[in-house]
């Protein structure tokens, strides 16, 4: 039931792009994306409700493929401030909500 994220960890140089994937074995109602820095609370990035919908947040955007039960988070021209652990959160019918396994992103100068 817990969505699986890939990759588990990624190291980028400033300015490079990254894609983080989130895959669920159950039909999805919505997908949420969060970023958490070490020792801090998760920060909500965005929610996607409809299949195929893409949303953006500065240079961070996401897509949601309802049919494939997948979502991807796109980080373009990464900045040092993007470093952290990214979690997807998936909402299913029956009011169930699960966080993904997490992806550690490190941006280096």
């Amino acid at each position, binding site marked *: 039931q*817990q969505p699986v994220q890939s990759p588990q960890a990624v190291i980028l140089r400033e300015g490079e792009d990254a894609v983080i994937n989130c895959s669920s074995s159950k039909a999805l*109602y*919505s997908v*949420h994306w*969060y970023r*958490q820095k070490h020792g*801090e*609370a*998760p*920060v*909500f990035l965005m*929610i996607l*409700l409809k299949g195929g919908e893409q949303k953006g947040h500065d240079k961070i955007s996401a897509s949601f493929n309802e049919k494939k039960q997948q979502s991807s988070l796109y980080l373009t021209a990464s900045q040092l401030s993007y470093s952290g652990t990214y*979690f997807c*959160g998936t*909402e299913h019918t029956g*009011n*169930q*909500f*699960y*966080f*993904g*396994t*997490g992806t550690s992103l490190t941006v280096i100068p």
Partner: protein
Amino acid sequence: EPEVTQTPSHQVTQMGQEVILRCVPISNHLYFYWYRQILGQKVEFLVSFYNNEISEKSEIFDDQFSVERPDGSNFTLKIRSTKLEDSAMYFCASSERGGRRGDTQYFGPGTRLTVL
């Protein structure tokens, strides 16, 4: 900017004791949530609360856990008889309209619970 606050920031307790974690959600928000995060692991959903009742809960949220909104501002999580495995960071979150309406959840800074 309004924010979710949590107290205490760190709670140490003996196994078997009851603890109450407190949260003050953002004032005009209607949906409230508790999550926990065991050190180094993912964030786990515990429960959501709307209109003075639980709207969703996970398998983790068993009879040892309860939530309450005792007044117009506080939202509490009670663990009746703490176990060693309850040691974790507990986050409270709130949202204005709820996740199904595409709404943002704002997280508090967390309470670190240590059970000895």
